[in-house]
C-alpha cells in the first residue's frame, strides 16, 4: 500500500483527510464579556484545548505570566490572547482581536470584543462581522447591566443566535439552580429583544468543564458542550435565503469585447439568464455570464465574489446595485436609522458627514435625532447630540438617492458608516430602518423662471460673500462697507448679519455646538434662496466650524461662494471688544464664547484673508469687491 513520507498513513486516509479539511465551513462569532467574566481565559482555553496554541507561544505566555499574570505559577491562559503591550500591562482588552481555531468539523474565527461600556463601539464592530454571538456571564453575578448591553447591541446588529455561556460554575459548586435561574432571567431579556435562538451552557473556562469535553461536574446538564454548539449552529443561511443583491464594486473592462461588473453577492443568488434590475437607474436586463473565482458559473450565491456580464449594453457604475427585478432595493435620499457613535467628537444634527453604504457614497445630514437609547436600560431619551458609544435613532437626509435595504432584511445592504469629512475618521455605524420617502416620488416642480433668468433681469451675477472670523474681528464693519459700495454700483445686495438673524429667524437657538451648527445651516439655506433670487448676499457670521462653512459652500455652485477670512488676532479683538462681550466672557458671565471657551477653526484656503490690523475698512472692502471682479464673468455679468 502506498504511503506518504513521514506519516505512515495509507494515502487513501490522507485523501480523506484533505477532503474533510476542504469541506469544513467557517463560523465567525463575537465573544461578549469582560475579563472579570473570564473571557480571555475562555478564549485561551478554546485555543489551548483545540491545539491551536503552539509551544513557543505557551512558553512566551509562561514568561509573561510571571510579569503580568494572575494565576501564580500556572500559565495565565488569558495572556495567550491579550495582544497589545498596553493591554497586557493593564490586564484589559482594549481593541477587537481576531482568534483562529478549528475542530474536526469547522474553522472558527473568534472575534474578541472588549466588554466595558467605553468600548461599546468595539463590541459593535465585532458583532457586525459575526454570524452568531457568545455572551459570557459570571455564574456568581448572573445577568448584569453589561449583559443587557451586550444582548441589545448583538440584536441591534442583526444577530439572532446567541450562546449564553455561564462561566465560573466551579465557584458556585456547579449548582444547577444557579444556572437555571440565570437561564430564566436571560430568557426574559431575550424575549424582550426578540433574540430567538438562545442556547445556554454551564461551564468553567478555568477547569475546562463543558468546553470541549463534558466533565463530571455537571451530571444534571444533558445539553451540548460549548464546542458542540459552535460546531452545529447553521452559518449563512439567512443571507442565502434573501433577495438577490450585488453592489457593484468595480467595472472590469479589459478590452472592447468584455464589460463585466464585479462585486460580492450580498444576499440571495442569481442564475445565468435571469433578469436583474440596476438601481438607481431602474434599467432591466439579464445576466449573460457569471465569472466566479475559478471560472464560469451557472449560479452565483451570497458571499461569492463574482463578475457578471449583462445581456444589454446599459450604463452601470461603481455604487450601483444589481438586484432581482421582482424585489428591488429601496431607493431614497431620506431614511430612518439607528446610529452608534464611534468618535470622541459628538454627532451634531445638521452637520454634513460622508455616508458609505455597500459601495455607494453620499453626503448625509442627520435632520432629526428622534431619541437616544440607553444601552443599559433600553430606555429612550430626548437628545440633541450623540456622544462616543451612544446609540440613537435618527432621520438622515442624503444629497442623492442611494439603493439600500432595511437592515432587518439584509445585513450587507442595510448597513452604513459615517465618515467625518475633515478628519476622515469613521465616526458612526448605521443600521437602516426604512426609507422615509421613495426617491421616485420626488419630482421637482419644473419652474420656467430660474436663477439665471432672474439674474439676467437684474443684470448681475448672484453669489455669497461669506465673512468668517472672531467676534470683534471687524466682519460687520467691512460687510457694511462692501454693501454700500456695491449698492452705489447699482448692485442688488442683502447683508445677513449674525446678531440680526439671531433676533429673528434664529432666536430659538443658543450657543451650544449643536445650536451653532443649526444657526449656520439656516443662514446657509437662506443665503441660497437669495442667490436663487438673483442677489449678491453678504453673510457676516462668526461661523466657527469648518464643516458648516463647507456645507454652505456645497449648497452653492463652485463660483457662487467666496469665503473671506477676517483674520484679526484674538488679543486685538479682545482689546477692541466693541460690545463688551470678551470682558463678560472672561468674567464667566458668558459661556461658550468663541475664542475663549469655544473653538474657532480658521479657513484652510479662504478666497481672501483680510488683516484688519494692516488695512483700512475701505481697503478691505475694495479687496472683497475685487474678488467679484476677478470672476471672469464679471460683477455686471
Amino acid at each position, binding site marked *: 500500500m502506498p504511503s506518504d*513520507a*513521514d506519516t505512515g498513513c495509507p494515502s487513501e486516509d*490522507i485523501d480523506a*483527510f*484533505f477532503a474533510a479539511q*476542504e*469541506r469544513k*465551513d*467557517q463560523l465567525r462569532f463575537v465573544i461578549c464579556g469582560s475579563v472579570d467574566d473570564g473571557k480571555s481565559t475562555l478564549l485561551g482555553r478554546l485555543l489551548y484545548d483545540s491545539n491551536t496554541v*503552539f*509551544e*513557543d*507561544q505557551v512558553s512566551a505566555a509562561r514568561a509573561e505570566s510571571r510579569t503580568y499574570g494572575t494565576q501564580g505559577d500556572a500559565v495565565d491562559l488569558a495572556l495567550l*490572547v491579550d*495582544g*497589545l*503591550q*498596553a493591554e*497586557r500591562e493593564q490586564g484589559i482588552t*482594549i*481593541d*477587537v*482581536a*481576531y*482568534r483562529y481555531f478549528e475542530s474536526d468539523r469547522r*474553522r472558527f*474565527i473568534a472575534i474578541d470584543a472588549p466588554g466595558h461600556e467605553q468600548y461599546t463601539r*468595539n463590541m*459593535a*464592530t465585532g458583532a*457586525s*462581522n459575526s454570524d452568531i454571538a457568545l455572551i459570557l456571564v459570571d455564574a456568581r453575578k448572573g445577568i448584569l447591566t453589561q449583559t443587557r448591553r451586550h444582548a441589545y447591541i448583538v440584536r441591534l446588529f442583526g444577530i439572532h443566535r446567541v450562546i449564553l455561556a455561564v462561566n465560573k460554575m466551579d465557584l458556585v459548586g456547579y449548582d444547577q439552580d444557579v444556572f437555571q435561574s440565570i437561564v430564566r432571567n436571560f430568557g426574559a431579556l431575550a424575549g424582550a429583544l426578540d433574540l430567538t435562538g438562545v442556547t445556554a451552557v454551564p461551564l468553567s473556562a478555568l477547569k475546562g468543564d463543558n468546553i470541549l469535553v463534558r466533565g463530571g461536574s455537571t451530571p444534571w446538564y444533558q445539553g451540548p458542550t460549548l464546542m458542540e454548539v459552535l460546531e452545529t449552529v447553521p452559518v449563512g443561511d439567512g443571507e442565502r435565503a434573501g433577495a438577490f443583491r450585488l453592489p457593484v*464594486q*468595480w467595472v*472590469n473592462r*479589459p478590452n472592447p469585447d*468584455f464589460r*463585466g461588473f*464585479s462585486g*460580492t453577492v450580498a444576499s440571495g443568488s442569481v442564475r445565468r439568464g435571469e433578469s436583474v434590475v440596476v438601481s438607481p437607474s431602474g434599467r432591466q436586463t439579464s445576466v449573460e455570464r457569471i*465569472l466566479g*473565482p475559478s471560472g464560469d458559473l451557472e449560479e452565483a*450565491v451570497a*458571499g*461569492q*465574489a463574482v463578475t457578471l456580464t449583462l445581456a444589454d449594453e446599459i450604463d452601470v457604475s*461603481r455604487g450601483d446595485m444589481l438586484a432581482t427585478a421582482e424585489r428591488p432595493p429601496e431607493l431614497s435620499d431620506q431614511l430612518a436609522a439607528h446610529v452608534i457613535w*464611534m468618535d470622541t467628537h459628538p454627532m451634531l444634527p445638521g452637520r454634513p458627514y*460622508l455616508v*458609505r*453604504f455597500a*459601495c455607494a457614497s453620499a453626503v448625509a445630514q442627520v435632520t432629526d435625532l428622534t431619541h437616544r437609547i440607553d444601552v443599559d436600560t433600553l430606555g429612550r431619551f430626548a437628545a440633541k447630540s450623540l456622544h462616543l458609544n451612544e446609540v440613537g435613532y435618527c432621520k438622515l437626509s442624503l444629497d442623492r438617492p442611494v439603493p439600500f435595504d432595511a437592515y432587518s432584511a439584509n*445585513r*450587507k445592504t442595510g*448597513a452604513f*458608516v459615517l*465618515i467625518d469629512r475633515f478628519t*476622515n475618521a*469613521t465616526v458612526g*455605524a448605521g443600521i437602516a430602518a426604512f426609507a422615509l420617502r421613495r426617491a421616485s416620488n420626488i419630482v421637482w416642480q419644473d419652474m420656467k423662471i430660474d436663477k439665471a433668468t432672474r439674474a439676467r433681469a437684474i443684470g448681475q451675477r448672484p453669489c455669497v460673500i461669506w465673512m468668517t472670523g472672531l467676534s470683534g474681528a471687524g466682519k460687520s464693519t467691512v460687510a457694511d462697507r462692501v454693501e454700500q459700495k456695491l449698492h452705489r454700483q447699482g448692485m442688488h445686495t442683502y447683508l445677513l448679519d449674525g446678531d440680526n438673524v439671531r433676533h429673528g429667524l434664529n432666536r430659538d437657538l443658543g450657543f451650544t455646538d449643536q445650536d451653532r451648527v443649526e444657526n449656520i445651516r439656516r443662514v446657509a439655506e437662506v443665503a441660497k434662496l437669495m442667490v436663487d433670487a438673483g442677489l449678491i448676499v453678504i453673510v457676516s457670521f462668526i461661523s466657527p466650524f469648518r464643516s458648516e462653512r463647507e456645507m454652505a459652500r456645497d449648497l452653492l455652485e463652485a463660483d457662487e461662494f467666496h469665503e473671506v477670512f477676517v483674520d484679526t488676532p484674538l488679543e486685538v479683538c479682545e482689546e477692541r471688544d466693541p460690545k463688551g462681550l470678551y470682558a463678560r466672557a472672561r468674567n464667566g458671565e458668558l459661556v461658550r464664547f468663541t475664542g475663549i471657551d469655544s473653538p474657532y477653526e480658521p479657513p484652510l484656503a479662504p478666497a481672501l484673508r483680510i488683516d484688519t490690523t494692516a488695512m483700512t475698512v475701505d481697503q478691505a472692502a475694495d479687496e472683497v469687491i475685487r474678488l467679484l471682479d476677478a470672476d471672469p464673468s464679471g460683477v455686471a455679468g
Partner: protein
Amino acid sequence: MTHLDRLESESIHIFREVAAEFRKPVMLYSIGKDSSVMLHLALKAFAPGRLPFPLLHVDTTWKFREMIRFRDATAARLGLDLIVHVNREGVERGISPITHGPGLHTDVMKTEALKQALGRHGFDAAFGGARRDEEKSRAKERVLSFRDRAHRWDPRNQRPEPWSLYNTRISPGESVRVFPLSNWTELDVWQYIHREAIPVVPLYFAARRPIVERDGQLIMVDDERLPLHPGEEPEDRLVRFRTLGCYPLTGAVDSGAASVREIVLELSRSAVSERQGRAIDHDRLGSMEKKKMEGYF
C-alpha cells in the same frame, strides 16, 4: 461555502475595493507563500483584466538566491509590472545583518527602504500579505490600516471597521496598508496552495541543505557572505523553511515534508508557531508592535 471559498471571496472583495477607491495602489511582494497566495487572489479579482497596480519588492540584498530566481521567473511568467527597490544608502553604508544585527538591518534595509519606495512612487495604498494569526499585535490590526505621513501605525487610534465597509478616505501624504489575508491562517494558506496548485519557492520543501546551528536556529549557508565561526562546518541536513526572509535571519526546521500535501500534514501536527524562526520578532517583548508603529509592515 467552504472556509477557503469564504476567505477567497473576502480577499477578492478587499482587492477590488482598494483598487476602485485609491489613486495609486501597489502590492508588496515579498516572494514568500503569503505573497504567492496574495498574487493569485489579485489575479482572480481582476480577471479577465490585468492587475491594475504594480508589484513592489523591497530587496534587502540578503534574500535567499532561490527567492530572487523565483521572483524573476514569476514576473516573467505572468507578465507582471514588478518594481525592485534597494535602499542604496544602506548598501553604501555597508549595512548587513551580520555586522549590524537584525534590528538595525531590518530598520534600514526593510522599514526605511519601504518608506523610500512608497514615497518615491507616491503609492497611497500598499497590499501586504500579513495575517492576524501570525503574531499577537497583528491580531488587532485592521484590514485597512491607516498610516500617517511618517508611515506610523497608532494601535490606540485605529479606525473601526464595521461590516466590510472600509473607510478609504485619506489626506495627501497619508496612506494605508491593506491586508487581504487578514483572516487566513498558516494552514489555510497551505490548503489553498494545495487546492489551487499555486507555485511557491522550493525552499519551503524539504531538501538537503548546508546548515550551521547557531543559538538553536538552523541557518543555511546560502552564499560566501556568512562568516563561519572557528571550527564551524556547514552540515548537510534535511530541512525546510516555514517562512522566508533574509537568509542569515531565517531559521530552517528539520523536516522531511517535500510536497504541499506533506506540509499540510506536518502543520496539522506542529507544535511551534511559524514566526518562531524569525530572529526579528524576538528582540524583546512587544517588539513587533514597536516595529509596526515605526512603519514596518
